[in-house]
């Protein structure tokens, strides 16, 4: 038998100053309102915590627990299950090199070696300036752009060792960086975490519809006059109701 402790009042549990706590509490309430049951808000609230602290901090765990009426152990058990939730402070930029099979073979392993060498750090390590956290990532649903690098979960397609090294140099030098398929300017880890908590940052209309591989079938079909059968009703059986 374990003894269950009721969560203590939030004011004692969270290490945030009052203004921060109030802002987080307001946003957490907006998150909770999106769901029929409050606990569903846990993952977005952990993204919210990361947008404040750059990782799932002890005070963030306490905040999430107090908000949802969970124990800190329950929150930690969830947080540690998911790779996007960081257990120690993350760099301003997470540079993820896809080393799943397809990207690895198309050159991802070579990119990984080069970037890790260049930065002098390994998986889940951060440069001393606190700017870049390096990760080996799994397939990110962009295999037609292999080899792929993700920075703060934005796409950097068709990379080479040279382009990836230039990318991390730009990040560390504070030069503007633009994802291949994403916003005009790369956001920080904390900013992106705020979006993942479900708060739009106003950049949805930037960037392309997709890159060349995304459009290949679309363009090829048009060039050749290939199409699916016409949609406008002709093929619909007569017994179906007409459009009003």
């Amino acid at each position, binding site marked *: 038998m374990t003894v269950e402790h009721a969560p203590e009042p939030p004011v004692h549990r969270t290490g945030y100053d009052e203004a921060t706590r109030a802002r987080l509490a307001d946003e957490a309430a907006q998150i909770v309102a999106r769901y029929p049951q409050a606990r569903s808000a846990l993952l977005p609230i952990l993204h919210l915590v990361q947008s404040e602290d750059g990782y799932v901090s002890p005070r963030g765990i306490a905040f999430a627990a107090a908000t949802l009426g969970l124990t800190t152990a329950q929150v930690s058990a969830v947080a540690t299950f998911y790779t996007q939730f960081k257990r120690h402070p993350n760099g301003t930029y997470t540079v993820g090199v896809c080393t799943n099979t397809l990207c690895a073979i198309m050159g991802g392993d070579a990119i990984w070696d080069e970037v890790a060498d260049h930065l002098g750090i390994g998986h889940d390590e951060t440069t001393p300036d606190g700017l870049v956290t390096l990760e080996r990532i799994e397939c990110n*649903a962009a295999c037609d752009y292999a080899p792929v690098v993700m920075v703060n979960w934005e796409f950097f397609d068709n990379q080479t060792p040279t382009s990836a090294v230039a990318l991390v140099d730009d990040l560390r030098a504070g030069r503007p960086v633009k994802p291949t398929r994403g916003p005009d300017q790369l956001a920080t880890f904390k900013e992106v975490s705020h979006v993942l908590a479900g708060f739009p940052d106003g950049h949805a209309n930037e960037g392309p*519809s997709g890159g060349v591989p995304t459009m290949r079938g679309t*363009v090829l079909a048009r060039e050749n006059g290939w199409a699916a059968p016409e949609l406008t009703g002709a093929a619909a059986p007569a017994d179906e109701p007409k459009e009003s």
Partner: protein
Amino acid sequence: MTTLTPVLSKSWDAERSWTLASYESAGGYAGLRKALTMAPADVVTTVKDSGLRGRGGAGFPTGMKWSFLPAPDGGPRYLVVNADESEPGTCKDIPAMMASPQHLIEGVIITSYAIGCHHAFIYLRGEVVHVYRRLLEAAREAREAGYLGSNILGSGFDLELTIHAGAGAYICGEETALLDSLEGRRGQPRLKPPFPAVAGLYARPTVVNNVESIASVPAIVQGGASWFTSMGTERSAGHGLFSLSGHVTRPGQYEAPLGITLRELLDMAGGIRAGHQLKFWTPGGSSTPMFTAEHLDVPLDYESVGAAKSMLGTRALQVFDETVSVVRAVTRWLEFYKHESCGKCTPCREGTYWLVQVLKRLEAGRGEPGDIELLLELSGNIFGKAFCALGDGAVSPVVSGIEHFREEFEAGMHTPADVLFPPEKSALFEYTPSPRTGAQLAGAH
């Protein structure tokens, strides 16, 4: 010759294709307008008659899944869209939602109407921030235009839509793990039955469908079932996104009728990269047993791929040429499954760990006699004995790799994979490899 049939991808290259204005000017939301004039049950029947099968991997008939929901009891019923796309090689839903999120939103509204759902969810993997931005914006635009919220287009039908970002876990693509994750828990699969149709989200009747399945619904409703069945084969109807990646000249998304072959798709994609030949490929992601050049003419529909001892899966066609070591590829895939195993059941948690141990020594050229039998035995201890389909999927690359390329695994008992297949020959760029540990090991033999 089979040709392409763009439906979802038809307007992806339009100016700002992701906006509502662009979607509407290409005829978007005609399906919803028509659906709202129909009885919900008739929408279900239309989708049933169309023969649409789940595009998330298993190919279960979509309309039939909807009809499994128990009769309304006055309580809520949910639609949850599976947008977790993480199966290695699978890269169709993410570009589809980036280029045209309204396709999915319209599908969500029609499906919710059909099944009597008033709060739908899209569970998006968290590692694609720009897609999340586009989905949030698409929902905002749809709401403003009266497609979401209360009394949609004056029909009296109400629908809330929550778009939820996950946090990095392949297993959350498994539908019951997804539901646990959406409930704010560790994403671990649930025992089935009960199936989600009976007890899903918050233990309420729930339909879980893949992005592409739901995005296909508006055109089916608009065109009618026979429009859809005029594409594809008798039992694998309609159009689907085929994603070509790897050693092909022009990788990318090709939307075609089910039943097209890799040979036909390769023709369109400019063939294998210049100067090379096809060696092996996956028909539907890494969890589907690999194929070789022998299978170039297998029609890519559920039945034909099944008859050829693999699965259509997600139509993730990962193509590898003769420079690639099968042992290296399989080892890397198994490292993925080991990493992503949720740990709930022993065969998968321990089995993937041991498979990786054995594969790694074979890749390093330090395999031991009996290792191939050991791999097959370990696979046999996982297949059919794991709690969810991740376990079964994990052994597919091992078993099919040994079946087609046993000699490469045998070579792993004395020669490192990177000596037999220098990795720099497979890369898409030129580079000077660093001194090779494998080569040094080989020299030591």
